[in-house]
Each structure stands twice: as structure tokens, then as C-alpha cells.
């Protein structure tokens, strides 16, 4: 994995988890591929596509039951968030990571258009739809796990 892409992806992800959901994320061991997780443990997978100087997307997968807490923290709820709110929260988290990683890798002069968050059934389906993974980072969060990938393809 190119360090030049992984480092900004880590920074943007940690900033997003902390400021959006008060999650304190720690980089986790690279001991299991995101597509090797038991599907029953996966909370949700979403991607946000971008195009500009570079084209590709950000894929975010949460597993281990942390998506309800992400949504509840974002909403400031003591009780659980609805399924719709959880998917909305997951999409917004991916959107914020995407918006924050792009200036870190392409500079603040570059202009990008971001797509709306797209929900996928699996990590593999999301990556297959977007293109090759340029960087992947994994975080341990409150007993669960978050995987974030930066996918890039040749600019049309």
C-alpha cells in the first residue's frame, strides 16, 4: 500500500470518526481482509464516488455492531437510531471522509465532484463497482471494526 495514500486516508478517517460521532478510532492490525469478515458481522457497506483531477471513490464498511452507535452518536440519541437513520449516517460518514481525503492527496486547488452515497451488499461488490483499491486502512472502534478504502481509476 502506498504510504502517501494511506496516511491521508487514516487522517481523514480518524478526524471524521472523532468529530462526527465521537468515536476514537485506533489503527487496527491488518490480519483479516475486509471481505473475509463473516457477512453476519457486517453492519453496512457504502461508497462515495468522486471525479476531478482523479476519479474513484471511498468505500466504508462497519462491522461488529458499531453502526447503531455511530448513528446514535451523530444524532445525539440515547435510544437506538432507526435502520434508515443508520444507513443515512453511514453514507454521511463516507461522504465526509471522501471530502476530507481528497484535498490531502490532490491539493486544495483541485476541484472534485462527489456522488451521493451508494449502499452495497458487500465490500467486494463495492470495490468491484468502483475500481482497484489504491489504499486500505482498518480501525478498531468500540469493539467493532471499520475498513476504509480509497479506490482510484484512470481519469477519463
Amino acid at each position: 500500500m502506498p504510504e502517501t495514500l494511506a496516511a491521508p486516508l487514516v487522517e481523514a478517517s480518524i478526524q471524521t470518526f472523532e468529530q462526527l460521532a465521537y468515536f476514537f478510532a485506533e489503527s487496527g492490525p491488518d490480519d483479516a481482509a475486509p471481505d473475509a469478515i463473516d457477512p453476519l458481522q457486517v453492519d453496512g457497506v457504502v461508497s462515495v464516488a468522486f471525479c476531478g483531477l482523479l476519479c474513484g471513490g471511498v468505500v466504508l464498511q462497519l462491522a461488529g455492531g458499531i453502526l447503531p452507535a455511530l448513528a446514535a452518536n451523530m444524532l445525539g440519541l440515547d435510544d437506538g437510531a432507526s435502520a434508515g437513520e443508520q444507513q443515512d449516517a453511514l453514507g454521511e460518514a463516507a461522504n465526509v471522509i471522501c471530502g476530507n481525503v481528497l484535498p490531502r492527496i490532490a491539493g486544495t486547488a483541485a476541484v472534485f465532484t462527489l456522488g451521493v452515497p451508494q449502499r452495497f451488499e458487500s465490500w467486494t461488490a463495492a470495490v468491484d463497482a468502483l475500481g482497484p483499491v489504491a489504499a486500505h486502512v482498518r480501525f478498531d472502534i468500540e469493539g467493532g471494526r471499520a475498513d476504509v478504502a480509497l479506490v482510484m481509476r484512470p481519469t477519463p
Partner: protein
Amino acid sequence: MALNVLVVDDSAVMRSMLIRTLRLSGLPLTNVYQAGDGAEALSRLADHDVDLALIDINMPVMNGEQLIDQVRADGRLAGVALIVVSTEGSETRIGALKARGVSFIHKPFTPEQVRATVLRVLGVADA
């Protein structure tokens, strides 16, 4: 100072989060209205007196930039202060927004950042 605020974002979670952040910031809010896109926002602006609109950019039906153009073109809405709240990281695009008289808050945001930007836009010194 008591503020009527319109929050425009296609994500209901982000609208709720922004409203909670506004309340946490200690700003004096009177009424808070919501809209899921630019067209809904124009409807709310027609129905209610609004001092400040917080606007996302990427939205369906009518995006934030289109909404800003419509508001700026309507003399009846000249008193509405506009702040874009977005993940946008391009200084080029942010500069173009500021040239249209719009301020900018970057996602993710803190109550302190929101408070400082709102007070600056309204020309009010922080207590």
C-alpha cells in the same frame, strides 16, 4: 438577537446533527426549519421569516449552488445570510462561493466553529 434558521441538507441525520450543534453552540435560536433540497428550501423561505440559511451543496432536485443563485436573485430574500456547510475541500470552489457573498463551514464541524462563523456572518461580536 434571536435567530430563525433554515437548515438545508438531503441527509436527515446531518440536518439533525447540525441543529444539535447550533443548540450546543449557545446561539439564541427561535425557530429552526428544515429542507431536504433547494426547492424545498425556497418553499420554506417563502413561508417563513428566516435570518440565516445553512446550505449543503450536493443535493438532489436543486443543489446548493442553484439555491444560492435563486436566493441572491430574489430581492425579498436579500436579508437572509447564507452559509454553505459542506465537505468541499477545494479552495477554488470555496473561493467562488465566497465571491457570491456566502460563508463556509467545513464538515465535520464543531460547535465553536459554527458559532464563530454564524456570529461573523451576522456581524455580531461574541460575548
